[in-house]
């Protein structure tokens, strides 16, 4: 059995990416939904998954100074490339925000006053929701390395799919073009980029396509709220066509999307006969056919 992994991403946040992922996850029975937007995981609010499994994710390290041992010699200040160590009123102190966790200070300190502590407040959760299984990650504020947490969430999603005989994995990806996005799309069958008809939307879309085409992935585009600026929507469509990337659907602006969210439902659950739900259904069919 082959899994079909569909990743929904967007150059910037707030384009309606999660709304669309939630719809895709409820259009057919039994899917695995992976929320890889680990910095702002939101889909659990709609689906209230059970917590069958919880895993600690160590996102990095921070240096701390044992003041009983430190002689305030200040040698570590010279080694730190992140300007994270300072001498304030004769006392050597580490600025937690700036510390990158490289461990060099701890290695060179002659009295061994510096030790490294794990940043272990981030989590990966896995459980069930009303339409299948759900895996999601939550990066604790201030922590880094979301790319690795995304890897872990995707691995768990694949294992869950295999163990439960589920074929479809829907991935709600993070915004941007950084590491976590690359982790989200590497090796998926289909990338869906959600954009808005704004100048920023077009610019971000270009950067996102640049990233996804680097990985030679089948990519399609959804223009959300296209009627807020129909001219710009056309410009985006022309741009996509010129790259042979298909715009699989253009969704109108509709309050029903917010109303669905207020009711803790996806838009296709809340208003299955609305225009948006019908368009999303067709778009999903089209994506599934590209894969089979």
């Amino acid at each position, binding site marked *: 059995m082959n899994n079909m992994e569909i990743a929904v991403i967007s*150059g*910037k*946040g*707030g*384009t309606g990416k*999660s709304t669309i992922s939630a719809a895709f996850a409820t259009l057919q029975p039994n899917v695995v939904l992976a929320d890889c937007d680990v*910095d*702002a995981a*939101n889909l659990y*609010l709609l689906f209230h998954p059970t917590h069958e499994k919880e895993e600690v994710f160590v996102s990095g*390290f921070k240096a701390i100074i044992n003041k009983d041992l430190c002689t305030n010699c200040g040698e570590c200040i010279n*080694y730190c*490339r*992140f300007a994270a160590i300072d001498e304030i009123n004769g006392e050597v102190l580490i600025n937690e*925000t*700036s510390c*990158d*966790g*490289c*461990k*060099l200070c701890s*290695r*060179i300190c002659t009295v061994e006053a510096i030790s490294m502590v794990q940043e272990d407040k981030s989590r990966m959760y896995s459980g069930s929701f009303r339409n299948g299984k759900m895996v999601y990650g939550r*990066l604790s*504020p*201030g*922590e*880094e390395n*979301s790319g690795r947490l995304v890897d872990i969430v995707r691995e768990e999603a694949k294992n869950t799919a295999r163990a439960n005989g589920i074929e479809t994995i829907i991935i709600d990806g993070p*915004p*941007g*073009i*950084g*590491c976590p996005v690359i982790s989200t799309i590497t090796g998926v069958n289909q990338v869906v980029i959600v954009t*808005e*008809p*704004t*100048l*920023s*939307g077009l*610019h*971000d879309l270009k*950067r996102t396509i*640049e*990233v996804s085409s680097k990985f030679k992935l089948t990519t399609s585009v959804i223009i959300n*709220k296209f009627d*807020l*600026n129909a001219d*710009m929507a056309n410009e985006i469509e022309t741009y996509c066509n010129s790259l042979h990337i298909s715009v699989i659907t253009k969704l109108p*602006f509709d*309050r029903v999307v*917010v109303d669905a*969210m*207020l009711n*803790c439902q996806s838009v296709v659950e809340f208003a299955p006969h609305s225009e948006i739900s019908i368009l999303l259904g067709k778009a999903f069919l089209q994506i599934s056919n590209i894969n089979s």
Partner: protein
Amino acid sequence: MNSKITIAIASGKGGTGKTFISTNLFNALQKAGKSVSLVDCDAEEPNDREFLVGNFQHSFDVLQKIPVIDQSKCTFCGKCNEYCNYNAIFFLGEQRMIRILEDHCHGCGACSVACEYGAITEKDDLLGTIAEYSISPNSLLIEARMKVGVHSPVPTIKAAIKSASEAKIVLLDSPPGTSCPFIQTVATADYVVLVTEPTPFGLSDLIQSVETLKSLGKHCGVIVNRAGLGNNEVYDYLQKEKIPLLMSVPFDKKIASAYSKGILVSNENAEWELKFNQLFNTIHEQYGNSSN
């Protein structure tokens, strides 16, 4: 006003209108003749320049030092690999193979310290670019732009903020989320404006941002964008937490459509220009009161 103030404009997730608020606030202040700099810290997807017309002043590169291995001096002892806390050195001792994985390297310098055989030198590596545009004689837009594929936007953001220190009022359009780039941005601010939407997703992200700011000891106020599209939970939360509601921007298709064309509402409409000036005064008073 003679004191300096740095205000960060942030939001738990992207797309809530952070850029809308930042660019309009900046524009209203520069039209009032204030000395103001806007730093676009969303280095993965900088967008502020789409709304502001200015003259390019100058730009500079943000660099880090990364190691270069002289294979003729290397004894393949492996000490550098042991020192690297980021798995940035690919090392196979028995096969006499060593390579720096430049995309993973944080430029911490630990490997150079480790090598006892003088086999490691360093070279410059590009992380991002800072560009400055003058909008009016007293105002600057500073854009931080991360190079695609770099592990973190943080060094680029820090360099951009540092270069803004001249102006009396510094506005920081913060990166979305609550992870490292957000923390690095708000850490330098005197006051943080959080922009949110009155929806369950918006509220959940807002709570996470507020909690993070509390732990950093930062003062904050909230702007509700697209008011009227959602429910009252956000307002209840603000009341309960005694967080000031600084401004409310109603959902209006006209505003959304102007924004999509790159038009600033503070240029089109005198009433909004006034509102943004008042917003600044409110923040200034609050910050003044809370810091006294």
